[in-house]
């Protein structure tokens, strides 16, 4: 695994730091979260290449600052919807690595008992409404969560993560417009990582910024550097407070970059190795935030190394947990299809009791 000790350049890059009143502890938690995402994903990649893990897996490496910055602005009870590239959102929303890794391995101990895998990992208990195999489908769903809060008159906020490619889907338009007409407590975070599978963003987006589409809905549109976790936090906090105050949704576009292939196994014919190397060298959110923490005197390089060591151990423990966990038994095939009695007369006792729990 690459060491994350910041190069000199990164230090200068972060002059004039706005810490948004976040405590040292909060800042360190953010760093740890980003690192947990990075190390988790790096391990997932290794396991996949060793055929110890399978399925359609989309890594979040390079984009850690977006999920972390946005979720740091949330309270318990707030919810998020995610995408096919959802591991980072899960970790930032507080899911545990062990049941996550187990889910990616299709094990019974996974968050979804192995029935969902990477593209459907979810934990409603954590307010994580699910990764999603369908591009942009999370947008109407989070609009719906926000609608639920609005109808109920409660104070929660729904944050929706989606990609630049998703911004061209009808669900983007309908979901955001719906939320805007009712001023629902929703925040839409576009992760513009420069590519939609094999298409560079500019091929399918006839304008420069996804955020400019906020004009079509009469809501604020904000562009942030997606490799700067503090900038993302700042924009998200403003948007979340606004939503909670009943002032309606915000569209945030985080400019970021996908360091890995679209999915594990992607030959990446659509971009050069140099382009990727250049991005890794210049806009690694972890290197950047690590430098900031040192500059602020929040942590020394040694402390950051120590956190890294702890995180690696946590990830290893998750891998062990996953690998030692049992496969879901055949009896699980036909459970969880319905809540309550199954129309085909198949009972689902386990799932029902869990649901009630």
């Amino acid at each position, binding site marked *: 695994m690459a060491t994350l000790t910041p190069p000199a350049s990164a230090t200068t890059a972060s002059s004039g730091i706005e810490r948004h009143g976040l405590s040292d502890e909060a800042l360190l938690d953010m760093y740890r979260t980003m690192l947990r995402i990075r190390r988790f994903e790096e391990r997932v990649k290794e396991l996949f290449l060793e055929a110890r893990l399978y399925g359609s897996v989309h890594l979040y490496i390079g984009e850690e600052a977006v999920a972390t910055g946005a979720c740091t602005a949330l309270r318990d009870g707030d*919810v998020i*919807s995610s995408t096919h590239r959802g591991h980072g959102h899960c970790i930032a929303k507080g899911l545990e690595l062990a049941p996550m890794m187990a889910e990616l391995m299709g094990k019974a101990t*996974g*968050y*979804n*008992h*192995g*029935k*969902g895998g990477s593209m*459907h990992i*979810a*934990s*409603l*208990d954590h307010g994580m*409404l*699910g990764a*999603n*195999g*369908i591009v942009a*489908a999370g*947008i*109407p*769903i*989070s*609009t*719906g*969560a*926000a*609608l*639920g*809060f*609005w*109808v*109920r*008159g409660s104070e*929660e906020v*729904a944050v929706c993560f989606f990609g630049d490619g998703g911004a061209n889907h*009808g*669900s983007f*338009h*309908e*979901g955001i*417009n*719906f939320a805007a*007409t*009712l001023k629902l407590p929703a925040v839409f975070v576009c992760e513009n990582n420069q590519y939609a599978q094999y298409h560079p963003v500019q091929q399918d987006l006839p304008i420069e910024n996804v955020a400019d589409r906020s004009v079509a809905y009469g809501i604020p549109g904000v562009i942030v550097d997606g490799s700067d976790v503090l900038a993302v936090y700042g924009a998200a906090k403003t948007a979340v407070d606004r939503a909670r105050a009943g002032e309606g949704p915000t569209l945030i576009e985080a400019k970021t970059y996908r360091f890995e292939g679209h999915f594990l196994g992607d030959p990446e014919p659509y971009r050069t190795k140099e382009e990727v190397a250049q991005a890794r060298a210049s806009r690694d959110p972890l290197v950047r935030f690590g430098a900031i923490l040192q500059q602020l005197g929040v942590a020394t390089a040694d402390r950051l190394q120590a956190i890294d060591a702890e995180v690696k151990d946590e990830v290893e423990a998750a891998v062990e947990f996953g690998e030692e966990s049992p496969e879901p038994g055949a009896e699980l095939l036909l*459970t*969880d*299809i*319905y*809540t*309550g009695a199954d*129309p*085909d007369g198949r009972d*689902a006792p*386990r*799932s*029902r009791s*869990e*649901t009630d729990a």
Partner: protein
Amino acid sequence: MPEVTYSQALNMALREEMQRDERVFCLGEDIKDSTYGVTRGLYEEFGAKRVVGTPISEAAIGGAALGSAAVGMRPVAEFMYMTFMMCAMDQMVNQAAKMKYMFGGKAVLPIVYRTMAGAGRANAAQHTQDLASWFSHVPGMKVVMPTTAYDAKGLLKTAIRDDNPVVFVENKVLYATAKEDVPDTDYTVPFGKASVRREGKDVTIVGLQRMVETALEAADELAEAGIEAEVIDPRTLVPLDIETIANSVKKTHRVVVVHEAHERVGFGAEVIAQVVTHAFDYLDAPPARVANPNVPTPFSRTLEELSIPSAGQVVAAVRALVA
């Protein structure tokens, strides 16, 4: 007990359930000034937060219902015509119906997707198609098709109280034509219990919605010829009360399924496949179907009428089996 129409009965169900449980709310296009009256008066009684008028955005309606259910609400989403659900299939089928399973059971999604279908009002091909067979193909979904005003109220209440996504298909023509005494008190009609609308020993006719009336007409005609038809209304397609249907066939040894939906891969095919599984040895004749002859519904009244199964066609189908 007041005589009320099918649409008034649905309106009663919505009002009573919204009064009973404040998590229940309606959303949809133009539901404030409800064209067929199903949501009439609800906006005035419950306000803009319980009767949510939406933009013309079916995918968002489908997803908004799902998202609100995921955070504890009990949405009743209206799709003005069933064909408009084609704009929301991903949210309804790929998301709502699969979510519980994909999430390992840890989701309870009480959603009612209300809509209306049916021929007979010269709405032409894009406003008529009955897609119930599509939704019946989908694990995780329940499908309801009420025929009478009494059942409409009781089944809608059951749908609203059900903890799963339910596609609730109302019939355009029955809104006004189906009238009967309906209690203004609280009652429900269970899913998965067919209603035997007429008893008979010679043939079983399974009909859906308006086709139940058509089947009953046919039964009268057949009775004159000494053929006693048993007419069954499944009321819910998923779950399906195959037991009642199979037992009837074991008695009559013949079955004809009648629906307005297209014949090819329509629900009738499923009924037949299940009947042969459960009652093969009792069958004296091949199970038959009378349905839309695989044609988009034409606008012209004369042609539209010809596209809807008629009592005459049902009689002919039965005679072919009894002969």
